């Protein structure tokens, strides 16, 4: 995972967190700006739903601003924030299981309404065919992710896309490091099987060419 300026800023945000904890609204706003993309993307990969991801992100940051003074160690901010996010995600899953309503995105394809992906794509200089392939693979992978059970999905997203260490994930989920590794192993194994079932592999997608 290549580190962006945002990632570097996130890594060195101790003073910012200290200020936010002290009640500095400006600092709180900056922390939100820094972490919003990460939390949104975690929630989006978890639900595959923009609205749900937005809702969870909003709730997470409101809760963060309210409860920041109760954070014991600033170094644990990252796992603390993901813990809040995971809790809200689980709450949403429970709600969704309770009410069997149809998500609006299922009826109305939001993606189709948005601006074309290539506008913001980093591979804008690729050939259209290549772009299409990437997009398709991303969709298939997202679908595969959603097929995992909640516990495995949490761990796989946190490890693979959020780059948390196993120790940090264990802290977020309040479980042992070995359990996290086991869930990761079985999550990857399940993903592999799902992709095999969908007949997706290195050769079929032309990955690495």
């Amino acid at each position, binding site marked *: *995972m290549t580190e962006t300026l945002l990632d570097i800023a996130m890594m060195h945000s101790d003073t910012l967190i200290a200020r936010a904890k002290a009640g500095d609204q400006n600092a*709180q*706003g900056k922390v*939100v*700006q820094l972490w*919003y*993309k990460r939390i*949104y*993307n975690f929630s*989006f*990969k978890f639900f595959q739903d923009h609205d749900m991801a*937005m809702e969870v992100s*909003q709730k997470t*940051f*409101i809760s963060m*601003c*309210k409860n920041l003074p109760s954070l014991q160690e600033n170094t644990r901010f990252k796992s603390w924030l993901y813990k809040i996010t995971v809790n809200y995600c689980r709450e949403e899953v429970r709600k969704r299981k309770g009410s069997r309503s149809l998500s609006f995105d299922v009826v109305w394809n939001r993606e189709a309404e948005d601006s074309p992906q290539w506008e*913001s794509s*980093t591979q804008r200089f690729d050939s259209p065919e290549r772009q299409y392939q*990437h997009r398709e*693979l*991303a969709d298939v*992978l*997202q679908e595969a*992710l959603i097929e995992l059970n909640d516990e495995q999905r949490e761990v796989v997203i946190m*490890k*693979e*896309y959020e780059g948390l*260490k*196993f120790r940090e994930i264990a802290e977020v989920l309040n479980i042992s*490091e*070995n359990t996290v*590794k*086991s869930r*990761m*192993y*079985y999550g*990857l194994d399940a*993903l*592999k099987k799902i*992709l095999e079932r969908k007949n*997706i*592999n*290195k050769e079929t*997608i032309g*990955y*690495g060419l």
Partner: protein
Amino acid sequence: MAYKPSEQDLMAYLYDEMEGEEKNAIEKYLLENATARIELDKLKSLRGMMGQVKDKEVIAPPIFVGEHQQPFYRAPYFKTIISIAASLLVVMLVGKFSGLQIGYHDQELKISFGETKAQPVQSATVQNMLSEQEVQKMINNSLAQNNQVMQSSWTETQKKLDASVVWNLTVSSSKIDKLVKESSQASQNQIREFVSGMQTENMRLVKNYFQLNSSEQKQYIEGLLVDFSKYLQQQRNDDLQVVQTQLKSLENNTDLFKQETEQILTSIITTVGTSKSVGARN
């Protein structure tokens, strides 16, 4: 025992979260074990594929968090306590206005509304008016009276019973005597009739039996004789036929024999005749 990395070790190695001895051990194991190496390569390529899912760009919306603290009366626990207290107050008020009284006395629970009224206690006054001896006397009197009445009714019923028994006995004994007499007379006559009837019946039966028997035997023997004569006749006919056919066949045979001898004779004669004529010519 040979080292075999666990699932956890594999994950730690895959994500480069392993150091020192453990890392060396797993690397050595991977060098020696091709299947594990292939397995790990597959996981690496899966990770490579997963890397194709890029983050979505999103702009953080402004998040407003109210500065002021929530007043204590809006706190959920406070609301709960207040609601419990209010409902208790309502219950108490209703109890007060309806004059609810609840009491437990002498193993008896009383729930009442309004004022309690003193119940008139009559039994106590009665008790006070009568002494123990008087009560005893009253009981004795009533018992004696009762006994008298019972005694009189018993004697009366006893008398009635005796009278009815005597009357029943006389009536039934006369009836029984009559019946016995009738039955004895009737039985003598009946026996005689029965015996004579039996004798005649027996005679008739035996006669019939013999008659039937003799006629049946006769018929049977006649049938037997007829069948036997038929059988003999048949046998005779058959024998005759056999003799006849044998005679016929004998006749045929002799005819045939005759013809054959004739033929032979003629052939002999002709041959003898021809040889003689040939000899004469020579």
